[in-house]
């Protein structure tokens, strides 16, 4: 028997095996850290791809302040970033209640854990709701724009540089407009789901009659502001290039700039929102487990700690999304 037992000479040392846990963490917590590390790489893949596209279109990327400038109950007021700042606070605060729940768990205080878990769930719900509202504004759009043959976006401003909405430009031509269907066109086209509010001809005609309206392109000048064309250039652009009316944003058209901007917005904030939703679900499960006393019987609130790790990670990701989508 003795011959089959390998003696490595490391018995009793940190990495010598046996009952000793070298990283001094339980299996569950270690696995949560594994997951978080790999998930962090997924998110950084998304954000790095966003950075790639942004560097690629360095001089024509939308300015975030102009895209996300809504605040509830303040219609038509330019409120850059206030709302995302509010969302950031909500998420940081729900992180605080989560870590307070973990701390109360260490001291086996069931009532406190219950309250803090509930607050965390509420914070998460407010955050996801806010994100839905952001999406709604982004999809609906504010001013509308026209698209050129090359897929560039042309926006409208008045002579003071203030944005002008399509509805203030268009004239009613009483046209007969039909929804384009694939069966009536080339095979690779897709069905139009709805017609834009105005046809491109209505915008073109209206633009000719309104002398104080100019076109703003996506390109930045040397100060980082978007270049505004002269009236003559604007008329020429409208005549020769404009082919489509764009209202709001989806995966293929986007009134704010390159469609890629909308794609990344939907995928990154969507993937993050999905994580938050999963986190809320886990928190609710833990919340009820706390109430029915599962952890009290188990003698340890470590499950709160593990779910807490995930929740803080979601907060951590938002800190980066906030910086790279809204600030930089």
């Amino acid at each position: 028997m003795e011959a089959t037992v390998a003696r490595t000479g490391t018995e009793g040392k940190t990495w010598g095996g046996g009952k000793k846990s070298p990283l001094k963490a339980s299996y569950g917590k270690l696995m949560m850290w594994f997951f978080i590390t790999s998930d962090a790489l997924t998110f950084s893949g998304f954000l790095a791809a966003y950075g790639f596209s942004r560097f690629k279109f360095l001089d024509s990327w939308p300015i975030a302040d102009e895209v996300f400038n809504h605040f509830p109950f303040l219609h038509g007021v330019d409120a850059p970033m206030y709302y995302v700042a509010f969302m950031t606070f909500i998420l940081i605060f729900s992180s605080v209640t989560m870590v307070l729940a973990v701390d109360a768990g260490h001291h086996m205080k069931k009532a406190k854990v219950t309250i803090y878990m509930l607050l965390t769930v509420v914070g998460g719900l407010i955050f996801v709701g806010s994100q839905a509202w952001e999406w709604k504004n982004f999809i609906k759009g504010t001013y509308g724009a026209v698209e050129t043959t090359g897929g560039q976006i042309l926006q409208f401003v008045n002579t003071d540089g203030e944005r002008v909405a399509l509805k203030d430009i268009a004239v009613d031509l009483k046209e007969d407009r039909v929804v384009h269907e694939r069966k009536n066109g080339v095979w690779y086209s897709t069905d139009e789901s709805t017609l834009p509010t105005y046809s491109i001809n209505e915008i073109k005609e209206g633009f000719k009659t309104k002398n104080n309206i100019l076109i703003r392109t996506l390109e930045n000048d040397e100060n980082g502001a978007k270049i505004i064309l002269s009236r003559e250039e604007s008329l020429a652009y409208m005549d020769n290039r404009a082919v489509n009316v764009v209202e709001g944003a989806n995966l293929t058209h986007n009134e704010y700039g390159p469609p890629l901007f909308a794609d990344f917005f939907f995928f990154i904030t969507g993937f993050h929102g999905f994580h938050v939703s999963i986190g809320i679900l886990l928190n609710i499960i833990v919340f009820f487990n706390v109430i029915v006393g599962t952890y009290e019987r188990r003698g340890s609130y470590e499950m709160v700690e593990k779910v807490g790790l995930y929740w803080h990670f979601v907060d951590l990701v938002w800190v980066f999304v906030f910086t790279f989508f809204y600030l930089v």
Partner: protein
Amino acid sequence: MAHDATHQDDGSAVKRIWSVFGILSLVTIVEVILGIIKPEFLVKTTFIYMSLLNWIFIVLTLYKAYLITWAFMHMEHESKGLRRSVVWTGLFLIAYLLFILLTEGDYIYEVYQNGQMTWDF
């Protein structure tokens, strides 16, 4: 288990949580204010391919990330081995990915600028 490492007096742990919350809020407020007023001097000054303002945002973000991981995720109480396997692995891979993709993006930007007649047809 990890408990022995995290056991502190009730007061000090809770105090640490609230002070970290205070710092995180303060940093976020500073970021938002800077993002809204965009001081001319910071926007115009370029430092290693980027404006000073963007560098400030990135440094503040990393500081927030550090606080969340260390204080909220209890990284400061974990063993050195666990801390390094998570943080060093992540930082190295992310830095590498960013370096490669941003360099490539910048190269394509140059091609659009100089390498062809027009791409906005």
